[in-house]
Each structure stands twice: as structure tokens, then as C-alpha cells.
């Protein structure tokens, strides 16, 4: 354990460099650059609001906030896990030639997605003032769902990264799964109106979204949702770490 920490310290700088690289290269050669981090959620929220406001029946002036909270968390989860999944293969050149602790690759991808996600939270902040959803003391608890979504993404990222090395199909399968997760996460509809509540228990990010909304709308944290989301997050992380460590020595033979 102590040697693992020592090793981590040695490669902390590499982790930072790789994270920086991912962020830098993401927007290189685009005219608006990092501004897209803000523009993208604004535009998708506008689209989703226009499309789904009709389904909602009675008009709700905070509906864009409802969408934005779910949408931001989901898009971080989706982006981070996809990136982490591909991280081993896209860094194969490096892995084959130099020794670097391999978890650095998925971790740096999750971190860079997280930084972009953190920036995009500014949009939510702006929208809260526009739609008069003023923050209460409960917003301070938002660090709980925000930490959980990070742990969850890291866990899933490591599981997927391992699987994707051995089976390329994982990349396509995960795209489909992500779509399923999106539609069952109550991002643009009200979960209470759905008859089959079990669907939401199967969704790893739904309960994180619930608690994040509670923090934003000024409600206390839902304890049941917290327990479920913690169970999902830590289970994913533990499985991810074990799987990754068991298989990492074989990566090089398959990439």
C-alpha cells in the first residue's frame, strides 16, 4: 500500500500533464475553444426544453433547471466513461514502450472530463438566477452527489477500460447502454409519473441526480437515494479496481 502511494506521488505530475493534455486537445482548433463547455449544455437544454415542455402539460418555469441538472450529470458520466474506456487503447504506443502505472490513463481521462464538467456547472449557476431558483443552505450538500458521480464514473471507467482491451465490442455495447441509462434517468420527465419504479433502481446515476436536484431546489438530501447511490458508486469502484489490477499485466498482449 505504501509503495503504491509512493508510486502515485512519483507519477502525480504525469497525471496532471495527461489531464491537461486531454482538456487542451479537446478544444484545439475550434474557434470557440473552451467556450463550448458552456455553450453545449445551454444549447442542448434549450432543445430539450422546447421538445419536452409540451409533454409536461402544466407549465413549470423551472423546467430548464430540472433538465440541466440531470443533463449535466449524465453527460459527464457518459463522456468520462467513454473516454476512460478508450484510454488504454489510445495510449497503447506509450504502454508498450515505457513503464507507467496503467490506472493513470483512465484516471486522467475521468479527471479531465470532471474539470470540463465543473466548468459547465457555471451554466447551471447562471440558469438558477435567470429562472429564480435561488440557492439555499442545501446547495452546500451538493458536494455529496458531485463526489459520488466521480467515484461512480471512475469505477465504471476502470471496468470498461479493462473489458474494452479484450473485447472491442464493448465500445459499441456501452453506447447503447448509455442511451438506456439516459432514458431511464428521468432527465426530461418526472419520475413520479412512471408506473414501473423498478427501472430507476436499476439505473446507476438516477439516485445521484435525485439528490443533486434536491440540493439545487433547496430540499434536504433523500437518505434512501443516498444509500443506493453510494452502494452503486463504491461497488463500481471496488469491482473496477480489482478487475483492473488483476488484468493490467495482460493489457500489453492485447493492444
Amino acid at each position, binding site marked *: 500500500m505504501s509503495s503504491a502511494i509512493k508510486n502515485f506521488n*512519483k*507519477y502525480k*505530475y*504525469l497525471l*496532471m*500533464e*495527461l489531464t491537461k*493534455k486531454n482538456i*487542451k*486537445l479537446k478544444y*484545439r482548433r475550434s474557434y470557440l475553444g473552451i467556450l463550448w463547455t458552456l455553450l453545449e449544455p445551454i444549447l442542448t437544454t434549450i432543445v430539450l426544453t422546447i421538445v419536452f415542455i409540451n409533454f409536461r402539460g402544466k407549465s413549470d418555469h423551472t423546467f430548464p433547471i430540472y433538465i440541466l441538472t440531470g443533463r449535466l450529470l449524465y453527460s459527464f458520466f457518459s463522456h468520462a466513461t467513454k473516454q476512460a474506456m478508450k484510454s488504454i487503447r489510445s495510449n497503447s*504506443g*506509450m*504502454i*508498450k*514502450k*515505457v*513503464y*507507467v502505472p496503467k490506472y493513470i490513463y483512465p484516471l486522467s481521462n475521468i479527471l479531465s472530463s470532471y474539470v470540463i464538467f465543473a466548468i459547465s456547472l457555471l451554466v447551471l449557476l447562471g440558469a438558477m438566477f435567470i429562472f429564480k431558483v435561488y440557492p439555499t443552505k442545501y446547495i452546500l450538500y451538493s458536494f455529496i452527489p458531485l463526489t459520488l458521480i466521480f467515484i461512480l464514473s471512475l469505477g465504471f471507467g476502470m471496468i470498461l477500460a479493462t473489458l474494452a482491451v*479484450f*473485447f*472491442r*465490442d*464493448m465500445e459499441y*455495447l456501452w453506447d447503447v447502454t448509455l442511451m438506456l441509462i439516459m432514458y431511464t434517468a428521468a432527465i426530461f420527465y418526472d419520475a413520479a409519473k412512471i408506473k414501473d419504479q423498478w427501472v430507476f433502481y436499476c439505473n446507476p446515476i438516477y439516485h445521484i441526480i435525485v439528490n443533486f436536484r434536491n440540493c439545487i431546489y433547496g430540499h434536504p438530501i433523500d437518505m434512501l437515494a443516498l444509500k443506493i447511490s453510494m452502494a452503486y458508486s463504491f461497488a463500481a469502484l471496488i469491482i473496477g479496481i480489482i478487475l483492473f489490477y488483476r488484468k493490467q*499485466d495482460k493489457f*500489453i*498482449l*492485447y493492444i
Partner: protein
Amino acid sequence: MGKEVVKVENVSMKFNLMENKVDNLKEYVIKLIKNELRYQEFWALKDISFTVNKGDRLGILGLNGAGKSTLLKIIAGVLKATEGKVTVKGKIAPLLELGAGFDPQYTGAENIYLYGAVLGYPKDFIREKYDEIVEFSELGEFIHVPVKNYSSGMKARLGFAIATIVEPDILILDEVLSVGDAKFRKKSEKRIMDMFDKGATVLFVSHTIEQVMAICNRAIILDNGSLVACGPAEEVCKIYEEKFIERESGVMKPRKEKDGKAKKKKKKKTVNVEISDEIGIDPEKKISKDNDKKSDEVYIIAENKSDVLSEFMTENASENTENKSEGIAETVPNSISDNITNNISDNN
């Protein structure tokens, strides 16, 4: 002196060469059900043990596919041995393939920091040495150009400059003493010699006995994954000369070197190489087996070898017309084959 810095104990490395590579789920499940998942075991290294003391300069000799690079990769920590243990004390500078950690979209300057981080250097250290690296690589203004626009020589120069900026305890050299043009080669040789003088421990892979004799004080020979000889450089080189070079004499001897050169050039430029290396293992293995059986029929073996080689060349050719002609060139007089190899490297 006398202190062990690299200790290799009973190291074996097994590769599973799958008969046809399965990397998607459908195929895997189908083959699993049909019970067709066959692996062909291949031991790239068999029970290797040796130690390197501080300040030693160890030459590693062996034919292509003997397991030299695998051994170095295990020592560098890139590969993990199937069995056995490797202990390394001190900072390693692996000059395995220069510039392997570069990101093509990054500029040279950004890559200095990135590659430095990959090699585990602290940030302040890289910042301190930044100017020195740029100066040594002779890139000048090009340092702010994305690396994807570099020539292979520029890439190798930058890679060399970054990798050798530390004073490593252990230096791993895998035929990298021929980087860039003559001028830069001289410079890079000087830098490596300086490291020798400072008492760095060196692991050195080469095909040329002269180089090993000049640089190393100890040497080992790998053949087919086994350690054949281990001892003072001169004696081991003599054994290598007697046992291995003569085996290859006849048609192959003048060809061999050029072959190596042509392949190396390809290595830097085309993606195909990775594949060719993997496939390369098999023919090589067959050959050496043949060699063991009929060690007196030198000429037949040489012919066999060239057949296999040309086959493997055409298999991997990106534009196979050129490479086919190389297959023919095996028996053509030197001057012509020379021209052809030149053509090929130009085309690539």
C-alpha cells in the same frame, strides 16, 4: 563496484499466440462454445538468470527473435514476466524506442513536458532543463510546431534529447546509437559515452560484435529464449562469432545487415511494423529449430531462411510490388539488391 543493480532470477515469459486473433465478443463466445479457443504457447524467454553489477556494461547478443527486446522490456517494467523475478535498483533511462510517448497533436515544447512526465521526471527538473533539451535536439523554431509535422529524424532527436537529460543509474540501449544524421549521431554517442564515464550501468543490445566489444565489459547470448553464454565480453563475443555468425554464413551473410537496416527504417515510419514483429517471431523460431537439427547443412538452411524471410516480407508489405522484388533480391548480386533496398526505403 560489486553492488548488484539488476538482478534477473529465473525469468520466463510466455506469450499466447492465438491462432487467429479474437478480439470481439461474438467470435469469442462462438469459439468458446465450439471449444475452438486454442492458444499456441510460445516461450519467448526460458528461465533466464543473471545479475548486473553497478558500473557494468552488459552487451546482449542474439539473433532476431531471440528474446532480447522482451528481456529489456521486462527489465524496464513494460512487460511483466510470466515466471521469475526482476529486481532493479536505481533510475532507469529506457532508450527503447525514442519518442514513443509523444502526442502527435502536441507541439515539441509541450511534448517535452509530457514525455518528461512519462519518464517520471519532476516538473521543476524539466523546466530547468528545457533549454538544454531544445538546444541539444537542434530543433530551433520547430519546437513550437506540432510533432505530427516532424520528420522521423526530428522526432528521434527530440526523443533522445529528453530521454538522456537525466543522469540515469541504468541505461537501456536497444540499437538506438544510430539516431539522426552523422553529426547528430556523433553528438549522441558522445553523450552516451559521458554517461558511461560517470559510471552508469548499461544494458546494450546490438547485432554488431564490434560495438559490443567496444562498449561492453560483459555480455550474454540469448538463443531462442535461453541464456546460452554469460561472461566477459571478449569471450562471449568469440562464442557468438563461432556459433551464430557462421551458421548464417553463405547466402545470408552479406544480406543480413542490409535487411536489418531496411527493417529498421520501416520501423520508424510505418504502422505495419507492429504486426511484422509479431509474425516475425514464428518464422524465426522455425528456423532456429531447423538449425539445431541440421547444423551442418548450412547452405540449405540459409535458403530456407531467405524463403521464409521473403514470404514474410511480402505478407507484410504495404505496397507489395516493391517488396516482392526484395524477395527476389535475396539471390541477386549485392549492388542490385542495394539499389532495391534503397528504393524501398525511399518509397516508405
